[in-house]
Each structure stands twice: as C-alpha cells, then as structure tokens.
C-alpha cells in the first residue's frame, strides 16, 4: 500500500526573513514533512521587497502575500480580503490541509476560516500562553474561540499550553495534541564535542566526549540569552546578579539580548561596579547563540511566562546546566538532572543559582552527556512524525476510535451528531458551532461565516476552478523507514 501523503499549507504571519521561534518551527517542521514525502507550501505576508513566491531548501514554496503590517509584523485583520488569493493558492497547490501557526497571527486565523469554508481540513498550532484577565487577552481569546470552534485539530507545544488552550477556546481535550518544539541538535553542540559524526566505516566509534572538570579556580560562567523584557524576568535578573556575585565571587555573567530593560541592567552594573564580571553582548543572531552558550557553564533563564522554552533545550544541548524559573510549560521540558528550578522570586533564584554553582564546582553534574541525551529527546524527525499522525487522524486515515481514543459509533448514536473531533463541513453545522460562542459574539461569528461562504460562492462563479492553473510539483521524496513506535 503506498504511503499516504498530503499537500499541506502552513499559514502564519511569522516567517523568515524575520527571526524567531515560530518562524524556525514552521521551517523545520516543513522541511521534515517534505522529507516524509508530503508537499508543503508556506503562506505568509510580504516582508519589505520579498513579495510573490520564493523557494527554500528542500523545495518548500513560500507565498509572500502582500498585506499591510500593523503591529509586530502581524497583518491587519481584514477577515475577508485574503480569501480570493487564498482560494487561488489552495486550488493551485491542491492543498488538503491548512495548518495555521501562532494565535496572534490574523493571517493564520483568516486562513483557517476560509479553509473550512472551502472544505479543507485545518490544524492550528498554538505557541503561546495567555492569561484570562487583561483586555488584550479577552479579545484574543474570543477570536481564538471563534476560529477554533470549527478547526479540526489543535496542536500545543506543552501540556500547560494545552490546558490553557482548552480553557480559552472551550475545546474538547481529545482534539488537542501536545507536540513539543525541538532543536536541531547539530547546531547546538557543546564546545569539546567531536565536530563531525565519525565516518560510517569505523563502526559506532562515537566516543563519549571528554569529561572536562571545572578547576577550583576557574570562574563559573553564567549565560543569559533572552530578550530583555519584563515578561522575560529581567527585573529578577537585575536584582539577583549582585547577590549571586556577592555569594560567589569567582563567577562571571554573559548576557545576550536587547530590549527596554537593558538600561536597568546597565544601571545595576554601574552601581555595583561589576563591569569586569558582567558582560553584555547586546542582541545576537540565532546562529550565534551556540557560540555564546558554549562560553558558559550555567544557563540562567528567569522568565515569568513561557509556553515551552526552546532556548532551555538549546542550552542543555550545548552542555550547560540550566537554572530556570518553574513557570508555564518549563517544568515539562527538561529532566531534573539537567535543571535547577526556582520560584520566580529573587531569593529563590539566588539560592537555586548558588546550588547550581556548587554542584558544578563539586563536578557532580555530567554536563558532557547532556548533548546526546537532548538529541534523543527532541528531534524534528520525531515532531514531524507526530504531526503526521495528526494529519492522518483528521483526514480519516487513522480510524477515529484509534485517533480519539473511544468508541465513536456509540457517541454518534448517543446524541445524533458526529462527535466534536470530526467536524462536518455542512454550513449549518458550522453555524451551530459558531453560534455557541457567545450571546452576541455567536451571532457575529455566524454572520462572518455566512458572508465568507457567500464570498466563496461568488469566487467560484467569477474565478472558476478550472481556470486556475495547477502548479507543477517537485518530485516527491520517498520515505522508507517508517518504524511505527
């Protein structure tokens, strides 16, 4: 039986050339899915002069749709104006699955709505955590509820993120999968790691890297790489550094990153005369992160909120001992022998860092093993495989009972409706789902859905399907080893 492959469209406002976590997530996932024989196109908005279609490595086609950018490279939410172009791309590329990323991307939300109207399966990946209190969150949550009430499946990057999304969008938990981020571990090798994997002819000669002990007089170097914003816990950092240095004089700090809080850090350095102990590098590019990390022994991450914390995995992969605040999804990310957790309190952070320093001084932490362990934990191949399972599930290629974990036939008989996992495309069913979103919002959402449908019918009439050229595909890669579990 031939392997089932799909045509997938990844939609997000956030994509290269802009750097960032979501961007590289989409790229890495797309690459690995192409390796598995799928066809992937990425749809994003135009960045400066980067308009039209570009090709990336591995035959990923990127559509840069020209749209106005309003805030932090998110497009203006026009709801419907994207539809004609979107429909054109979907038909050209014969897309089966629309996969949107990032809950602050309006392009993604629009694509999911239009995708459902066109009768495509949709998946949404949530990369962030939101509270329920402030006005911005309330608005985003309402919008998310609108979009997700008719999405086929949701992917979250951590269990905490899943709980959050389930609450925010009132979803059925079985519709939400947890698939973490990963790192390209080849890009995050420790300092003394053998540079290239040994040639295949000398067997498994991958010798364990040399154990490097910390001498009694060597300074412990603590690395901090984060954007210097309030929510990254820079205030905690500013308060803790003098105390850590007071307790452990033979310690150095390297801080990379920029942001509004960097002025506080600089002030702290000057007031405590720590210029020779704290080095501030300013912002570093993602490919330089490894070079900064391998200069240190401990990675300190004082963030106040974090859905996953890819940087922690990167740091551990570089062989750093990780000290981090136990917030959001962070406690799920790394095992206990790689991390020291602190409460988001100054005292606790100082204590935890002290603990980490003395553990390193006592050479109790086998940091040289971290790289191989992390490599085994997080790889994009694995992520792509798990994402593929989601695609199979929503396309009906995995039996529903298997995918959703219970007897579906009984449920259907139970309340006369197909269960919430398999979403019917019939407009009336979609309207039913939207209507439940709220007293006023439900009606508004229904209106949007109806207009979207009319727009779809109009497009079908004005730009008939058979007038749209079908794009020629790259030859599909053939993926052989499919070791199930």
């Amino acid at each position, binding site marked *: 039986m031939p392997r089932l492959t799909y045509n997938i469209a990844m939609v997000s406002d956030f994509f290269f050339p802009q750097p960032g976590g979501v961007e590289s997530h989409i790229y890495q996932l797309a690459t690995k899915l192409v390796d598995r024989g799928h066809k992937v196109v990425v749809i994003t908005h135009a960045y400066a002069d980067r308009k039209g279609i570009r090709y990336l490595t591995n035959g990923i086609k990127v559509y840069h749709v020209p749209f106005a950018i309003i805030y932090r490279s998110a497009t203006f939410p026009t709801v419907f104006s994207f539809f004609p172009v979107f429909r054109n791309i979907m038909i050209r590329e014969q897309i089966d699955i629309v996969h949107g990323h990032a809950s602050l991307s309006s392009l993604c939300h629009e694509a999911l709505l239009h995708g459902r109207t066109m009768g495509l399966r949709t998946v949404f990946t949530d990369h962030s955590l939101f509270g329920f209190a402030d006005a911005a969150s309330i608005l985003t949550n309402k919008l998310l509820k609108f979009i997700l009430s008719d999405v086929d499946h949701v992917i979250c990057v951590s*269990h905490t993120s899943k709980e959050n999304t389930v609450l925010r969008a009132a979803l059925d938990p079985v519709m939400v999968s*947890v698939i973490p981020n990963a790192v390209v571990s080849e890009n995050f090798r420790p300092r003394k790691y053998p540079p290239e994997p040994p040639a295949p002819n000398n067997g498994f000669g991958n010798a364990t890297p040399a154990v490097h002990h910390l001498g009694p007089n060597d300074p412990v170097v603590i690395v901090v790489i984060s954007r210097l914003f309030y929510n990254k816990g820079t*205030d905690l950092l500013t308060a803790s550094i*003098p105390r850590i240095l007071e307790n452990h004089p033979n310690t150095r700090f390297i801080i990379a990153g920029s942001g509004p809080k960097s002025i506080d850090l600089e002030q702290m350095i000057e007031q405590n005369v720590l210029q020779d102990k704290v080095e501030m590098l300013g912002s570093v590019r993602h490919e330089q992160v490894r070079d900064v990390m391998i200069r240190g022994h401990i990675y300190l991450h004082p963030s*106040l909120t974090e859905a996953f914390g890819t940087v922690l995995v990167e740091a551990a992969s570089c062989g750093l001992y990780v000290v981090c605040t136990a917030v*959001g999804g962070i406690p*799920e990310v790394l095992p206990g022998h790689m991390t020291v957790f602190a409460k*988001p309190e100054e005292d606790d952070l100082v204590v935890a860092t002290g603990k980490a320093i003395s553990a390193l001084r006592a050479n109790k932490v086998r940091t040289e093993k971290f790289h191989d362990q992390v490599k085994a934990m997080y790889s994009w191949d*694995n992520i792509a495989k798990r994402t593929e399972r989601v695609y199979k599930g929503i396309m009906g290629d995995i039996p529903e009972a298997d995918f959703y974990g219970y007897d579906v036939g009984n449920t259907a008989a139970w309340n006369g409706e197909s269960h919430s996992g398999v979403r019917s495309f019939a407009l009336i069913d979609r309207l039913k789902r939207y209507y439940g979103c709220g007293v006023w919002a439900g009606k508004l959402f229904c209106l949007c859905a109806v207009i979207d449908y009319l727009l779809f019918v109009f497009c079908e009439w004005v730009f008939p399907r058979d007038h749209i050229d079908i794009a020629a595909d790259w030859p599909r890669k053939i993926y052989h080893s499919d070791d199930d579990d």
Partner: protein
Amino acid sequence: MAGTGMRQSVVGPYSTLTPAAVLPLDHLTTSPRSSRSHLAPEDAFNAASPPRRSGGFDHSSNNNNNNMKSKFGSRSRSRRRKRNWKKILWVKQSYPDNYTDQTTFLDSLQRNPRLQPYEFWPLVADTTVIVQQVCSVTIFVVCFVGIFTERVSPVAVVGWGSFATFVGWAVWDWWVGQEGEDEVLQRQNSHRSRGAWQPRQDGGSANSTTAPTTPSAASSVTNLGSTERTTSQGNLIAMRSQHGGSVTSLHSNVSHTSRLLDPQDGLRHRPSSPLRRGRATLRLSTIKSASLIYFTILGLSPILKSLTRSTSPDSIWAMSFLLLAINIFFFDYSGGVGVKFPASLSTNAALMASTVLASRLPSTGQVFSLTLFSIEVFGLFPVFRRYARHRSWRYHVTLTVLLTVGAGGGMGLILGEGEMDGLLGVLVRAFIVIVAMGASSWWLIGLQKYKNAMNGPWDQARPIIISRRQWEYD
C-alpha cells in the same frame, strides 16, 4: 442525568468547586476523586457551548457501566496501563499525543483564588467617599449657579469657602503634626528591632553624633520647600499640587529624619526637633504659596473672564458637564493620605471645568471668586477629606452628612424659591443618597456571582524582588 448536573454546577457564586462538578467521573477512575478541588476536562466547556455530547470520556450512563468501561478502556486505559502518564515532554510516552489524563488534567487550575466576598454594610460604608465627591461637585455647581443668577454674592461664597479652608488647614496641620510624631517614634522602634539583622548598619556609624545629622535633615526640608516654591511659579495646577505635595514633603522629611537617626542607637532624645522646625518652614511656605495663588488668580481673572466669549453657552455647559463627570469618574477614591498627585486627571478636569464656567461670568470679581473656590473645593478639600477619613470614621461620617445636607439644600434653593424648598431638597437628596448607596452595594454583591477568574500556570508570574531597594538607594 449526571452530565446535566455537572453543567449546572460549573459556576457557583463564590464556589471554589462543588464536588458535583467532578462527580460524573467517579465511576471511571479507581481513585476517589470527590476530594479533588480542581476541574475535570469536561468542565472546560461552559454551559454556553454548542450542544454536543456531554463529555470526552463519560458518555455512559450507569446501567451499561461495565460494558462502556471495557470499550473505553480498549484504547486509553487498560491496553497501555503499564506506565502511568506523566506531564513531561522529554520522554516518549506510550500514549497518543492527544491523550488527556483524567486525574491530572487542569490540576493546577484555580478559580477565583483571591476572591473576597463583599459584605453589605462595609460596602455601603465605602460608598460614602463617592457620595462625598459627588456632593462636593454638586456644591460647586450650586455655587456657580448662585453666582451666575446673582442670587448669591460671590464675596460670600469665597469668604465662607476660604474660612472653611483655613479651618480645615489648621485642623489638618494639627493632625499631621500629631501623626508625624507618632510615626517617628514608631519607626525608631521598628528600626531598632530591625537593626539586628541588618549587618550594614550596626557597624561604624554607632559612634557618630547627632550634630551632623540634624542640620542635614533640616536643610533637606528647606531644600524641599524651596524647590516647591520655584516649581510653583507656573500655572494654577502646579499651585494646587504644591499643597498636595507638601504632605508628601513632610512625609519624606519624616522618613528622612528617621533614616538618618536610626543607626544611632543612643539617639532617643528630642526626635521631633527637626520635625518642628520643618513644620514651621512648611507652614510658612504654605502661607506663601497660598498668597501666591491668591494674587495670581486675581491677576488672571480679567483674562479668564473673556476667555470663551466667542463660544456659545451650550458648548460650555456640555463641556463643563463632561469635565465634571470626568472628575467624578477618575477621582482617586482609594487613595491614602500620602499619595503624591492623587488622580491628576480628575483634578485637572475639574479645574478646567471651573475655568470654563468662570469665563461665563460677567464681572472680574465673580470670576475670581469662582476660580478660587474651585481650587479650594477640588484641590484642597480632597486632601482634608482623606485625612479626616484616615483619622476617624466619625469625622468621615459627619463630613458626609454635612456635605449631603449642603448639596441637597443648595440644590433645593437654586431650583425652588423659598426656604422650604431647601428643606425639601435636603430630604430628597438624603433619600436618593441612601437608596443609591444601598442599591449600588446590593447590585455589586449580586454581580459577584458572574465573577469567574481562572488562574493557572499559564499566567505570568509576579516576580518577588526584595533587594531592589538596596541598590536603588545606596
């Protein structure tokens, strides 16, 4: 049916969670869940969600319980029972990615964690601050109408107003003086006890004498005073804030003194001497700035008089209504006594309203009176009210009653004709105030049942930072 019971019990008035919310799942799990205080996954749907099956895993009714259990368990439970699911990402677990663990899902969700249920009478008591502000604004408007219709002499308004302000200031000054002395003593005690674990302070400074510290404290007071005087040369708003600022300058003075004094353990005699001197300076500067305000307004009155001559009266009424509404809505009702610039938007709006209203008046004397009166009412009176509330609840209530009577009587007089109308106004006003206080409190308590704050690990953590103070002030 269990499912409906679950839905109804999702949101209770002050409930953390009723056991009923987790009851329907009992037949599925072996562990007793009735003691749990968190939600089941199904509770993520609220009652308003679209009609669908009642839950993820509990669609069985009790009669085919065993049958369903086996079917259900065919996937997620029994077949993969060998290892328990863990909430971690770094190991490959033998569960599908969309597996939802019934026992731990939403374990850390807290609902209304910091809910303090309101009680009726304290709430009613708290509304008095709002009543006071509304009544002050009413009195101001009444005075304006009185002057505008030439029923009241502007000199009488400003005369009584100024007299009341002076009395208020004297009382306030007395209170502040008392307070300051108490505070110095208290701080000394607390600092002495705290000195035990502050290693920096018990060191070398114990030998130093009082002589260098006292003058420095005094000079800091005069410095504060002089800077205030220089800043207060400008507009009227700065004038007002100067008075408000004098409270804080006194406070900072107090804290300054105590901080300078506290290392010297032996120093206990005459802690208030720099304070007294400071207060004398302060009084002097207050009188100076008051006279400055007086003469500035006097000088500005002719200009203010013709300020809005070209604007139609309707716009002025609408605008001043809006501005006074802003004053009421943005007033700092919660502010304590030491707030530096309490609700500057509110005060500025009120002063602008008074300026605009004053420009409608025909004579310079009237303009002057109204402007001065507005500064007294909106700038200085709140300071006094705050202190009165801080000092004693009885003062506060008395003041509220007086203001209500004044506002009601004034309204009656300007709307009606004779003195009986004034009395009627008082009665009507008192009735409205009491009803409004009760009704609004009752309404707020009623609204509490809609409160549904959800907190969990996804919320941004609040960092606890202690030593910031240390490096900021050293």
